[in-house]
């Protein structure tokens, strides 16, 4: 592997983790992402192939699915994002591509996104200031794509009302981080 030093989306060598009252905002850098789109007319074959190769059933609209090694979420008609939940090094894109052959189109997205994990009992109030999506009513294991302070993001509900992952464009990592922190501070209980 290369001798080049990796940087986190925020431009540091280690991910940022910060606490504001009970709210934790953590930059999450140990996942691999690939997007997967079914070739025309191949959706069903792709489904079963992915299930066989990756151990995960590609989810329906707005859903997520979690296997032992990878999870998947729906991003658009016949399109999904696959995330390696364990560090299997940057082999994911190649592995997926090889597994599915011409049934789908695979694009490595690992470096396209910044992921922030935001957790704590007050986070649902934070989302009220961040997005028009009704995050409070999101069920565990669902994903929506919308905007946070004009930044297009995926919001994935890990544990309802308590733990969410936000995926935003890597180049806006700083602005997104500031938005999250500003809101976490704004919802701190009054002194």
């Amino acid at each position: 592997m290369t001798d080049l030093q990796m940087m986190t989306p925020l431009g540091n060598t280690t991910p940022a983790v910060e606490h504001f009252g009970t709210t934790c905002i953590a930059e999450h850098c140990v996942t691999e992402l690939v997007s997967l789109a079914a070739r025309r007319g191949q959706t069903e074959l792709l489904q079963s192939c992915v299930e066989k190769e990756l151990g995960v059933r590609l989810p329906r609209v707005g859903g997520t699915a979690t296997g032992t090694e990878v999870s998947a979420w729906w991003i658009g008609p016949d399109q999904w994002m696959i995330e390696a939940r364990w560090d299997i090094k940057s082999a994911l894109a190649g592995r997926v591509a090889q597994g599915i052959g011409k049934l789908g189109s695979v694009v490595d997205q690992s470096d396209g996104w910044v992921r922030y994990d935001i957790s704590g009992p007050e986070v649902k109030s934070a989302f009220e200031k961040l997005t028009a999506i009704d995050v409070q009513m999101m069920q565990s294991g669902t994903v929506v794509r919308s905007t946070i302070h004009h930044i297009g993001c995926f919001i994935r509900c890990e544990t309802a009302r308590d733990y969410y992952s936000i995926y935003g464009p890597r180049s806006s990592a700083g602005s997104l981080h500031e938005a999250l922190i500003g809101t976490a501070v704004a919802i701190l209980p009054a002194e």
Partner: protein
Amino acid sequence: MTQVNRLSGGRLDRSKSLSFSFNGKAYKGYQGDTLASALLANDVRLVGRSFKSHRPRGIFSAGSEEPNALVELGSGARQDPNTRATTTELFDGLTARSQNHWPSLKYDLLAVNDRLSGFLTAGFYYKTFTWPATFWEKLYEPIIRRAAGLGSLSMQNDPDLYDKGFLHCDLLVIGAGPAGLAAALTAGRSGARVLLAEEEFLLGGRLIAEDMALGDDPAAHWVARVQAELSSMDNVRILLRTTVNGAYDHGVYSALERVSDHMASPEQGKPRQVLWRIYPKQALVCTGAIERPIAFENNDRPGVMLGGAVRAYANRWAVTPAQSVVVFTNSNDGHRTAKDLLGKGISIPAIIDIRQDAPRLSGVEVLAGAQVIDSSGRSGLKSIKARLANGEIRSFACGALAVSGGWNPNLSLTCHQRSRPEWCEDIASFVPRRDLPPGQLVAGAARGDFSTSRALQGGMNEALKALQNIGLTGQGIELPKAEDADPSLTPFWHVNGAKGRAWVDLQNDVTVKDVTLAHQEGFRSVEHLKRYTTLGMATDQGKTSNIGGLAVMAELTGKAIPETGTTMFRPPYTPVALGALAGRSVGKDFHPTRKTPSHKWAEEQGAVFVETGNWLRAQWFPQPGETHWRQTVDREARAVRKSVGVCDVTTLGKIDVQGSDAATFLNKIYANGFAKLQVGKVRYGIMLREDGIAYDDGTAARFAEDHFVVTTTTANAVLVYRNMEFARQCLWPDLDVQMISTTEAWAQYAIAGPNSRQVLQKVVDPEHDISNEAFPFMACREVTICGGLRARLFRISFSGELAYELAVPARFGDALIRSLMAAGAEYDVVPYGTEALGVLRVEKGHAAGAELNGTTTSLNLGLGRMVSKKKDFIGATLSRRDGLNGEDQLTLVGFQPVSKGDFIVSGMHLMNNEAPTDAANDQGYLTSAIHSPNLGHSIGLGFLKNGHDRLGETLRAVNPLEGGEVAVEVLSPHFIDPEGERLRD
């Protein structure tokens, strides 16, 4: 003396005494006061001057309908003009000042306007200052602007934070009076998600403003019990200090929450206000009613107040505006006021009741069939004059007059989507129509149900209806027994026969005579009346005046009020600070900032950044000793041509296109052909709009038969992606094509200059042969670098030199540029910024954004031959239009000054030498102009009529805007290496 007008009781915390100042003078109030109630308690009656006539004005109401008591709060950057004292919650240390006077509130020189009242009538702006026209801007307008207007701005940046937020619920209940509380409780108990928004800082509405029982207890006890129960429910959220300001399409509501306005300053990191966007499934408007005055001569003095407000001050705030209060009314509501005040020990010299059959009230002289015809007291009411039923005139000494002309349902939110209200004879007022906006219901006084009993019942019933509408079931709740008084009244709008002025609109100084005059002058439509007289405009939007104006108008036209009409209600219901509308999108946070992976490295190099879209790009990298940006840019551009430079081109849009029809698809979106592009090759491509105009250019690299990577310009990345999705989904939906943006995933660097290959060879892993033979011009390949890192290498050039672009996963961008700089050290590699990039491309004659300016075709750009005639593509047919292909087409050529010392600038227009400088003789224009460090003089690109045929000609480049003219020579746009040998070397 302090708080001479303070009574006993009220909803105040008397253990918390608060200090505040008004016009520099210190006063005391209590927790629970508004600024208005505290001023009244301290017998401060004069609080401001009117807008036009600078008449002394006092507190008129007890809520957000206040037309008069507008003050300036705070100081320094927090100075906040035009704030209603009636809704300003008192806090310790509050400072307020009156507005619209000079030099002081008491001695206002502009009160001369009051003496000129005959002159300042309706439409006076339109009639005066009309001649000579040139005087308007320089003389009249500045004077008028100084004299008119109310508060003043701090002229400093707002130091506070404002948030925006989004709320979802099953039922939004707007207003927490009897109807709202009954509704919230009904829906809350059913388990529905309820949002209860209350404008005030206490729940209860009129329940805490009246001396009233609910069941066997004072109403306040019931309010407290309901509040406690609602607060205990997880599914109910109460928003206090929150005004629902607008009802929008599809049942979306806006609300302003004043989070910190009741504090001297917000807590660190907390917003001053939050602008909420609310998405309720159903919304129930329980906004109550607003009392209306009766106009009579000199009815604007401080001390003339709405009766319901006087009652609210006495009951809720334990304040009377004066020790002696006369009541003027057309219904039993006035009697209620008198009764409550009597109970508090206030003297009531008389109730002037216009009704001939006015009921009696023990302990007070009720003058049935009487009318108030005048008042006196220059800066505060001293007495009123009444004409009795028998014609006799009597004066009453009093400090305040409580006026009640009836109540108007506060139906603004029901009309924000164009709905007009309908007339209800029973209460002589407008009520909401039955066809409310989808998802909206209305209950209580807002619907015209004025008794407390009917309000409670209505709130519950409408809440049940709302639940049913969204498939939920609720159960009725046990409602307390409440008053059920008959709201009937004798409609009465203004006292006839006034010789002087009787105000209809206090805020805008519109009198009965103004309305009459407007009518005489032909302004018959209500909308015209409003704009001509300004009736109903400004901060209060005529909440207490519109109906009075309509009534006068109706009398004049001989029509009924509903036939006369009503003006449109528009959001916001109360004024919203611009800061709240902006939220956090201010200053550097106006939009998100996009940074490339090597941004920190560029900062370390001292880069000067430029915003391109949301991106920050290094513009140039100054070295010690360089004092002017051109020195830096010249050095960078020269270094690229001489040896090698590195430029961050990460910001270019990158779209991954795959599928068995990928090539077919690209053939349709690019004007030139892509189907035959070999795998491992890159091609320059140009995209047209359907009208034939070029809108973006870039390259597409073919990595496999069914895999391309399309690059777009930085600025158009989003647009190109959108258009490609349009083509994929809407035009050719059965092509097997999959696309996704990968702009963010790659850090990409241009390595340009004769030594670029040598530098690259030190970075690219040795198993990849990048020699000229193995990796020629326009090749692309997936390679590994620096010991196994996957990367993409493209041999493309914007500068005209031997050049490459190298892309790596974004997390390695920082490390890569450091490696490239280290590898290039022996060749004196320089980082170069966007400015040098621009210089290099102009020298080479490459078109960019300035040339693809939304008016130019591929023919104009000199790319006409590229455009395929054998296939269909977006823009194909219309690019062949005669108009875009006829004689005299503009074509892209180069220019240099005839005298090399001269400078040309972009935007200059080209004129023939002998022809005059005018549009008719325009030959074209310069789009890009630079100083070429490699040629040593100014050069430019531009469009010239038939430019290709005019090489060698001299023209005049003129700058009519700033002056100046330069003789220029027309050249090929390719100033450097016109044969392109360097690229292929």
